[in-house]
């Protein structure tokens, strides 16, 4: 730590004054500094991020379930994704029918979750998918008391309007990576195209859910860039994924992220996004395990995906719900706002 009589340059002290006390997010350069702190500062960093979360978001945790309506066979080439049709991944194309979709929503609601997100592996929805969505969302809303969210790739303005009309209340579209690293991850569409869909969603009245992945070989600076990009976008929710290297994909041979690195990243994202819902998304079981999951919930995370993911399996929700209970973090009720 370097201090002078009037000022401190220790990044955690700076973050405490700037983020916790004044409610101003860290800048990109400051996020880099946080990501560079050593393991000896990790406990302090997580504690600070937790204080920020408690002050600006409160103790409750938003619980969500997700399901894949259309799996596999996607024309895009996102290098982390087992659902791209461009790689020799063992994932085969399959569609979920409406009764199964409703069953999945009921399973999710039974955990106390307030969110159910319907996901499709597509560049953007075609008419058939929009029709399935219209039917599916109506069937869920008639049978289950849960907010319906969607993630269907890039949208036109007309499709944004249609989703609003169906009653979809939140739309997920991730930036995936910081702008400068994005071309290393996806070549079939641009970061700017993703940003445009996010902007349209924000303006539509739907809540925007927008995050990305870490652990894909990006530099610390590029990881900070993603956090800062998200800070500028100001989504309602940021899902944070840790790369789970999938067989057959270009990133299939990368090593999963180190636990401490993942925890530092969680805390840094919280300091970059003090007022946003920060959700554990894919890869936490592999990267963090049980102990790390707990540490992350005490280090800035305030939302979880319960149960399984789109093509991989999650923890038994009972374990997550018991952990939340133990941490005295109530599940966010339907229609509760932070």
């Amino acid at each position: 730590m370097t201090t002078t009589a009037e000022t401190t340059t220790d990044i955690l002290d700076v973050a405490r004054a700037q983020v916790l006390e004044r409610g101003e997010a860290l800048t990109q350069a400051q996020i880099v500094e946080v990501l560079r702190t050593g393991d000896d500062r990790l406990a302090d960093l997580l504690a600070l991020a937790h204080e920020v979360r408690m002050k600006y978001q409160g103790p409750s945790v938003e619980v969500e379930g997700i399901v894949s309506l259309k799996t596999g066979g996607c024309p895009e080439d996102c290098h982390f994704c087992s659902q791209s049709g461009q790689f020799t991944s063992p994932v085969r194309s399959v569609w979920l029918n409406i009764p199964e979709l409703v069953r999945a929503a009921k399973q999710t609601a039974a955990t106390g979750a307030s969110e159910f997100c319907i996901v499709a592996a597509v560049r953007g929805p075609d008419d058939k998918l929009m029709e399935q969505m219209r039917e599916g969302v109506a069937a869920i809303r008639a049978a289950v008391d849960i907010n319906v969210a969607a993630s269907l790739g890039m949208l036109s303005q007309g499709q944004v309007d249609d989703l609003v009309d169906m009653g979809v209340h939140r739309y997920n579209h991730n930036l995936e990576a910081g702008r400068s690293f994005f071309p290393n991850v996806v070549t079939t569409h641009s970061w700017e195209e993703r940003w445009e869909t996010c902007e349209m969603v924000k303006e539509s009245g739907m809540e925007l859910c927008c995050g990305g992945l870490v652990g894909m070989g990006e530099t610390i600076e590029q990881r900070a860039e993603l956090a800062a990009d998200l800070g500028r976008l100001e989504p309602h929710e940021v899902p944070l994924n840790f790369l789970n290297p999938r067989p057959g994909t270009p990133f299939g041979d990368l090593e999963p992220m180190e636990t401490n690195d993942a925890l530092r990243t969680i805390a840094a994202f919280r300091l970059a996004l003090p007022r946003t819902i920060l959700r554990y998304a894919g890869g936490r079981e592999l990267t963090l395990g049980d102990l790390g999951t707990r540490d992350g919930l005490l280090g800035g995370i305030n939302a979880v995906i319960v149960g399984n993911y789109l093509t991989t399996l999650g923890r038994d929700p009972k374990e997550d719900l018991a952990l939340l209970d133990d941490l005295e973090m109530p599940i966010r009720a339907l229609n509760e706002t932070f």
Partner: protein
Amino acid sequence: MPLTRPDEDLPLPDEAGSAAYCGRCGDALAGGDHERCERLLALEPPRYCGQCRRRMKVQVAPGTWTATCVQHGTVEHSTWS
């Protein structure tokens, strides 16, 4: 739990005892080291039929997964207690 079984005489895709192929990597179980695959199968459903190594149609839902081999049928497993 079997959902459909096209042929009563054939074992199900993941029937213990008769599987010849690894559900994760699709390679023959005999002579190979699938310890890592086995560990990872706690966090992902099998993609290959254990009996014939065909790629299966797999549907993951929040509390279940279902896998179908055209020849050996469909199995569904709950992942919630």
